[in-house]
């Protein structure tokens, strides 16, 4: 399959993400430039982390007007896959490709650390290689990652299994009550512990944690094998989905 990683002015994790896709996963990966509207025929567009346009005004607010985002919107409308990580998630919300918005963290501080995530739903292009209830350890690093959406939208996403990952305790549990103190595991105060959501069309996914920083075994191995490559599951799920669809399509056309 073919990946495209967008570089906005101010993108930071574009190189890291491309490195993981190209050198660790071994897939064809092209760089997409914000001033061009050419997606070069990629199967999945990744909007990486960083501070696009300095994240001045609001995170992701300015990036959504760049030429590439017009192409991304068309790609998504045609059913193409889009993955937004951190700043990419913010851009997708600002662009209206995902519901809700990301606001200042509860504690008003940038937070960079490993969090534990529970996989909530697996019948989708992004987490299909996980088991529901799996607990992943993936880092977050953001100042504005508190997810907000109105209750009706949250209810609808819950019903449609579009909240794919949630912050949780290491044992997978969460506070029962929204109003309880959840600061022991929810790093930013996100509503209903949402860490990542999918659109109604089920082809656009945005999340605050950084799968690309929990993907390279050569790096993860160092601190006494501290982390599994949980982030890799997302990239592998996407690849698996694309491959399956391709097989189905070619089987269909052969018939």
């Amino acid at each position, binding site marked *: 399959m073919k990946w495209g990683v967008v570089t906005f002015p101010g993108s930071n994790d574009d190189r890291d993400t491309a490195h993981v896709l190209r050198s660790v996963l071994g897939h064809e990966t092209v760089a997409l430039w914000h001033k061009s509207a050419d997606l070069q025929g990629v199967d999945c567009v990744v909007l990486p982390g960083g501070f696009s346009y300095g994240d001045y*005004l609001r995170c992701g*607010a300015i990036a959504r*007007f760049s030429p590439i985002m017009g192409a991304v919107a068309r790609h998504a409308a045609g059913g193409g896959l889009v993955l937004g990580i951190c700043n990419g998630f913010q851009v997708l*919300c*600002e662009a209206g490709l995902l519901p809700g*918005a990301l*606001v*200042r963290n509860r504690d008003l501080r940038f937070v960079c650390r490993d969090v534990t995530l529970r996989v909530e739903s697996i019948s989708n292009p992004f987490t299909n290689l996980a088991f529901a209830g799996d607990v992943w350890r993936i880092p977050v690093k953001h100042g504005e990652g*508190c997810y*907000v959406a109105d209750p009706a939208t949250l209810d609808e996403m819950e019903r449609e299994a579009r909240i794919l990952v949630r912050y949780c305790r290491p044992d997978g549990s969460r506070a029962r009550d929204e109003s309880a103190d959840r600061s022991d595991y929810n790093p930013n105060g996100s509503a209903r512990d949402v860490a990542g959501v999918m659109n109604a069309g089920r082809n656009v996914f945005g999340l605050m944690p950084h799968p690309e920083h929990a993907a390279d075994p050569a790096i993860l191995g160092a601190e006494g094998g501290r982390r599994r490559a949980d982030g890799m599951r997302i990239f592998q799920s996407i690849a698996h989905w694309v491959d399956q669809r391709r097989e189905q399509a070619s089987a269909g056309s052969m018939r």
Partner: protein
Amino acid sequence: MIARVVIMPKRGVLDPQGKAICSSLHAMGYDEVDDVRMGKFLELRFVDGAAGEERVARVKSMCERLLANGVIEDFRFELVDDGSPGDGPRGPAR
């Protein structure tokens, strides 16, 4: 001519900064403060002095498309004549 734009968190949307400022004020002894909301203030300076309907419409569209995020924010603005271009911020007198 300048436009003064105020962008505030929608009612019901968390405003952790306002909350934090409010508790700091209390800690400093300003107990008369009941509640604090924090938003943004923008000053747009225009190239020419023309005003009118169209300018209002265009500022509104700037707010809707870029300056405010309708999911979480409300905005309002006013257009004012500002004799001295290049001067510092102006607004409600102190």
